[in-house]
């Protein structure tokens, strides 16, 4: 519904007059986003201004409506303002609550005995008041769409309605009865698009005067603005609920995913008492190294670097499932043939993981975790940064753990020796950047060989 917007920023008082005129001429809404700032001009002296003080208040309020996050706060403000400024016996707002399938009284004010207690009453959808508004029959009674008690009474006294429109007459009777129940003199609908969001109920003016056309026009405007704000708040609330739901689902699925990976990792570890806790430690080291690598451009190549790293580390040895026990647990040096069997584990691992679409990145990292920086590793002899970043990290962490723990074929070495070994092989077996990061993490106390007992899933 169109309204004339002021071309220049008018004075606050001019604006009020303009607004009142608009409200009188049109029972329409106005654009709440239109900027109507006072420019500080001298106010025009007009005898009726004081009378419309409350309108200035509501006007200001309607511009800030959009900022109300909760529709209830907005409703409270409207009810309070009307109660304070308009001097009516009572005021109430009913809002549609989808889960209760009815309009619930959510705020009210008024004199003793007339104030309708908050939460005490509801109007169901087939209530004649509600259906008059939602069916837009209220427009048959008044072009403003407001149900005014006087109009209803006038309609009931109109012989023409009684004789020619018996349906409307019956409807008016039902509406009168409903207005009597809550002693309403005005019921103002609040629509968003075609939906009736709520109803503003006003009793009579304490001084007994009728509501003026300006006031009625203003209520319509106010209701339209409130509808906008309420609808916005509802949309945001719904959206927030959907987002939370999706987040919850994601977190749950993700937890299952991580725990499945941990279970698989535990299955690998369980086969080999010597490497017990190996996967857990390697994962911890990898995450400590990752912390030092934060901000390097390569990290950004991953959609979710930390998670891919964690899962890859957990599953890096999953291919050992395909390596015979007697080779895996052999005491003493492996024959070249046996070593070839061992080497297959990284390919087997990636083959196991590759059918899982979500783990395609992980499969790649697992395949290359035995590559060497100088190209002398296996299975593909990749070189330098052609080796995926996560594979390079796992390579260092994996080596450090194998040096610092007992193996069937060798005794463990001290940590200092292990660090010296990493430094010695930096640039040949290992990426020097990763080795530096590892040493840095060590200095900070983030690398300890005692495997943490707590779950490293989350």
């Amino acid at each position, binding site marked *: 519904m169109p309204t004339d917007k002021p071309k220049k920023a008018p004075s606050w008082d001019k604006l009020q007059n303009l607004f009142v005129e608009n409200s009188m001429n049109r029972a329409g809404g106005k654009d709440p986003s239109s900027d109507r700032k006072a420019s500080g001009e001298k106010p025009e002296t007009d005898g009726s201004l004081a009378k419309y003080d409350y309108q200035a208040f509501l006007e200001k309020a309607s511009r800030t409506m959009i900022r109300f996050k909760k529709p209830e706060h907005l409703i409270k403000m409207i009810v309070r303002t009307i109660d304070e400024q308009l001097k009516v016996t009572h005021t109430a707002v009913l809002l549609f609550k989808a889960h209760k399938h009815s309009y*619930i009284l959510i705020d009210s004010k008024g004199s*003793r005995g007339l104030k309708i207690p908050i939460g*005490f009453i509801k109007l169901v959808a087939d209530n004649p008041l509600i259906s008059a508004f939602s069916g837009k029959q209220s427009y048959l009674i008044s072009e403003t769409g407001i149900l005014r008690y006087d109009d209803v009474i006038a309609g009931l006294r109109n012989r023409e309605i009684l004789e020619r429109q018996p349906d409307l007459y019956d409807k008016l009777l039902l509406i009168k009865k409903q207005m009597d129940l809550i002693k309403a003199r005005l019921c103002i609908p609040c629509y968003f698009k075609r939906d009736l969001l709520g109803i503003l109920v006003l009793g009579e003016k304490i001084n007994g005067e009728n509501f003026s056309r300006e006031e009625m026009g203003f209520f319509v405007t106010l209701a339209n603005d409130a509808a906008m704000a309420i609808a916005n708040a509802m949309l945001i609330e719904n959206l927030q609920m959907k987002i939370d739901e999706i987040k919850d689902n994601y977190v749950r699925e993700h937890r299952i995913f991580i725990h499945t990976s941990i279970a698989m990792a535990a299955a690998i570890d369980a086969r080999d008492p010597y490497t017990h806790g190996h996967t857990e430690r390697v994962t911890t080291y990898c995450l400590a190294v990752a912390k030092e690598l934060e901000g390097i451009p390569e990290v950004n190549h991953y959609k979710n670097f930390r998670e891919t790293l964690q899962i890859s580390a957990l599953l890096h040895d999953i291919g050992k499932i395909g390596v015979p026990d007697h080779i895996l647990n052999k005491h003493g040096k492996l024959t070249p043939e046996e070593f070839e069997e061992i080497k297959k584990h990284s390919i087997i691992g990636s083959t196991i993981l590759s059918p899982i679409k979500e783990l395609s990145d992980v499969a790649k990292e697992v395949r290359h975790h035995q590559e060497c920086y100088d190209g002398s590793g296996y299975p593909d002899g990749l070189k330098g940064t052609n080796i995926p970043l996560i594979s390079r990290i796992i390579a260092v962490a994996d080596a450090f753990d194998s040096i610092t723990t007992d193996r069937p074929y060798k005794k463990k070495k001290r940590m200092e020796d292990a660090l010296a070994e990493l430094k010695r092989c930096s640039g040949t077996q290992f990426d020097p950047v990763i080795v530096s990061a590892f040493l840095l993490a060590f200095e900070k106390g983030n690398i300890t060989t005692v495997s943490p007992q707590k779950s490293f899933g989350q």
Partner: protein
Amino acid sequence: MKKILIVDDETDICNFVQNFFQERGYEVTAALGGDDALAIIKKDRPDLVLLDIKMKGMDGIAALKHIKDIDRTIKVVMVTALEEQEKMDEACRLGACEYITKPLVLDQLEHTVEKNLR
């Protein structure tokens, strides 16, 4: 003139319901709690009591027992925000004639009271 007693620990509800039924030609008193209600009932027998279940101090169920001890013929309509079937069942067993759930439909409140006072 038929007499109604409204018992609710919310002042607004007492005032509103009192005014509502006074305008419909009843003599209405209000009590903010079970003890007040029993004192009023002993002094001046109402024909019908509108009794809130959930109240501070003596709750509606306890008050109902006492009311029925004083006079079994007083009609009691329970008003409650609880949708707990257990409490309702207990109130029925103790002799409440009907119950209304809050938020309520005013026609229904009016109708229930009229029907029971006919």
